[in-house]
């Protein structure tokens, strides 16, 4: 036995140690219907009710339990969810949804338009910041009959139809939550939704066991009998579990990026990066625009030129993603590709810095800037080291500062930083996920994922505002194209990459990634073979 095999054995022993519950692998072979899907949940969520908690693992798991009115294809076009059809009035103020008949919650109660109105206007408004941003624009929410929901907006809001996926607008049972303290409701432990799978058992620290919801409204769904989400805190054990077939699916960062090239080549596995279109994670180097010399646009442009973003993508992200060209991800609607290009060029960067009068000192350094290293693991640490080397070549000396999670969030949100890196989701529409980082009305001290860089341009503010309320897509595209051109010229932050997260799965699995929310979807049609 050589050293590598020995290491493997040790890791395997660790991975097997988490077992103790039956593995469904063999049972699923050759079957179309039935079977058990074993996958990973990392880290273990605090609660499964997605209306009350929107952390990543909660949403991944909760998507099987809670459904919403719509789903979205890879181009973010709406598909039927709980709603079989929908209509928008010509003035873009009234949205009418028709629900499928015979939808039931896991406790057997029918799901009606009353539950939808309650979920949207009560529980989500109070507990879900992202949903509140959209649903606070509702003037009236009505349920004229059990299968019809009518929303009337105060004024047009173009991305309204993009907010009905199960991570933004999960529908919860009104009869359980109405009039109670939502967070303390004992039914939270049972997580009663209307999705194709219901909670059977949650053994803390071990696994979450979901089984088929027999009363599911879609014929022949779900195909699988059960899904087991295993809690495996150690990343090496997660990779081994996948390699050995103990689990048949991983998502997000379950598998460390450097393991992906190796694992995706294994004969029993296949890899896709589809299914993150709705989130479109956008990574950038955040620059505090308030502090000299970063308040000078030429300095920020120099930073853009100084970073070899292709090398960053290939060396640290193992090619999983693409170079970002501006504030809007190419996966998000209204992306504009015809903007100023910042190809890697230390010479241009140096020329810009010289022009500013930032001359290198005797040690070659023009300026020293502290950089907060985000405490979210290796990839961020390596990225920081990469950025320091890149900027050092043009005379910008980054001093890396290690910090803990709470400290990073505190300093970053209170503008007590010069540079750091961050990743922000775009949620399908620039009005939902992009404008918040740049409009001056969202410069709010103490709030993460607000306009922390302090960028302020009245013209950009106006274009964002008009694009959000414009009633035709052409008009919106026009505004968004205009503002992307301005922003790429001014570089409020140095956009680095659009990240593709890998979904690694057993080759026999079918229909896992079918929509823009990927692994967060219901898994009703997922099957082995």
């Amino acid at each position, binding site marked *: 036995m050589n050293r590598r095999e020995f290491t493997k054995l040790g890791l395997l022993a660790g991975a097997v140690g988490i077992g103790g519950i039956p593995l469904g692998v063999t049972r699923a072979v050759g079957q179309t219907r039935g079977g058990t899907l074993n996958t990973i949940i990392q880290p273990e969520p605090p609660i499964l009710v997605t209306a009350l908690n929107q952390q990543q693992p909660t949403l991944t798991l909760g998507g099987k339990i809670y459904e919403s009115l719509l789903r979205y294809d890879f181009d973010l076009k709406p598909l039927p969810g709980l709603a079989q059809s929908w209509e928008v009035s010509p003035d873009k103020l009234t949205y009418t949804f028709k629900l499928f008949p015979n939808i039931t919650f896991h406790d057997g109660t029918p799901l009606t338009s009353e539950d939808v109105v309650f979920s949207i206007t009560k529980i989500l408004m109070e507990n879900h910041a992202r949903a509140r941003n959209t649903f606070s624009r509702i003037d009236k929410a009505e349920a004229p009959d059990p299968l019809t929901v009518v929303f009337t907006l105060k004024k047009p809001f173009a991305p309204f139809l993009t907010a009905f996926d199960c991570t933004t607008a999960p529908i919860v049972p009104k009869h359980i939550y109405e009039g109670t303290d939502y967070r303390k409701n004992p039914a939270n432990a049972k997580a009663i939704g209307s999705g194709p799978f219901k909670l059977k058992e949650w053994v803390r620290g071990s696994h979450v066991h979901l089984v088929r919801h027999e009363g599911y409204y879609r014929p022949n769904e779900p195909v699988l009998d059960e899904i087991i989400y295993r809690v495996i805190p150690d990343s090496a054990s997660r990779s081994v579990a996948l390699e050995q077939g103990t689990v048949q699916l991983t998502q997000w960062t379950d598998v*460390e990026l*450097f393991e992906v090239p190796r694992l995706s080549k294994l004969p029993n596995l296949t890899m896709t990066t589809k299914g993150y279109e709705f989130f479109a994670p956008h990574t950038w180097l955040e620059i505090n625009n308030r502090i000299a010399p970063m308040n000078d646009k030429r300095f920020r442009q120099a930073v853009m030129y100084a970073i070899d973003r292709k090398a960053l993508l290939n060396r640290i992200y193992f090619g999983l993603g693409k170079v970002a060209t501006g504030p809007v991800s190419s996966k998000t609607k209204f992306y504009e590709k015809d903007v100023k290009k910042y190809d890697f060029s230390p010479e241009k960067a140096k020329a810009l810095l010289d022009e500013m009068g930032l001359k290198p000192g005797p040690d070659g350094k023009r300026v020293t800037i502290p950089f907060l290293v985000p405490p979210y693991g290796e990839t961020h640490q390596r990225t920081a080291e990469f950025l320091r080397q890149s900027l050092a070549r043009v005379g910008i000396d980054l001093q890396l500062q290690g910090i803990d999670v709470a400290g990073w969030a505190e300093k970053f949100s209170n503008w007590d930083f010069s540079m750091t890196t961050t990743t922000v989701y775009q949620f399908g529409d620039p009005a939902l996920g992009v404008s918040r980082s740049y409009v001056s009305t969202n410069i709010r001290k103490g709030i993460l994922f607000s306009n922390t860089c302090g960028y302020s341009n009245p013209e950009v503010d106006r274009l964002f505002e008009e694009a959000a309320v414009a009633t035709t897509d052409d008009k919106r595209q026009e505004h968004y194209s205009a503002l992307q051109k301005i922003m790429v010229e001014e570089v409020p932050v140095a956009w680095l990459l659009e990240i593709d997260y890998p979904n690694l799965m057993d080759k026999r699995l079918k229909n896992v990634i079918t929509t823009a929310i990927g692994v967060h979807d219901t898994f009703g049609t997922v099957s082995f073979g």
Partner: protein
Amino acid sequence: MERLKTFLRHPTGMIGLVILMAVVVLAVLAPTLFPDDPWEMVAAPFQPPASEGLPLGSDMLGRSVAAGIAYGARVSLTIGVASTLAALCIGVTIGAIAGYFGGKVDDLMMRITELFQTIPGFVLAILLVATIGPTLTNVIISIGAVSWPPLARLTRAEFMRLRGREFVQAAVCQGQAPMVVALRHILPNAISPIIVTGSLTIATAILIESALSFMGLGDPNLMSWGLMIGASRTVIRQAWWMSMFPGIAIVLTVLAINLVGEGLNDTLNPRISRKARKA
């Protein structure tokens, strides 16, 4: 001179000294041997050892592992020596005061020392670095702050032993100030065991520094051995060399210092004659 000769005849001590000198030379010559910054991405990532221009391979960003080890030697030795000096200053001062004056002063000093001894040193070091921030100076301060209690206890014991000797009593009777007595008469006679323990403290300090860096609590601007292992720990299945060579560097350096310390102990301690040891 006599002692130097004894040391030079001490086989394991000499082995240690040779290795240690090699590490020191590597640290001193690092900028000459590797003119590029150790953080510079000089090659393709994941190059195995003995590739073109990369005697020990490259890491996941294409940085030379050999350069990292050379520059890491500077960091490890600097931190080891500096934090041991800090620990010596604190430990010897406290131990000397306690041992010289005895009584209530001794009680007070020893209770403070025990307070530090009850807290596991490494945990306290983590806490200190996490609180005051991971910079070179802070790491040195933190390691110094957790390494002094054994030195204090040793110094105290030596001082208590020598305090009652005739030559010390004579100096006191002559009316010399306590400071003078302690520094000129007691300390020179107590220094041997302190030097030995101090040398071993350097080894411990290097280990603590590596462990801190491994956990990501080292100065992120300094290439150190612990940081290299910590960074490449996760790719050990693909690239063993990234963590293996810095690991060997730590083992060799710590071993060398321990051997030298043992050699010094045998040489400086008059009660262990080399002949007796051999028998």
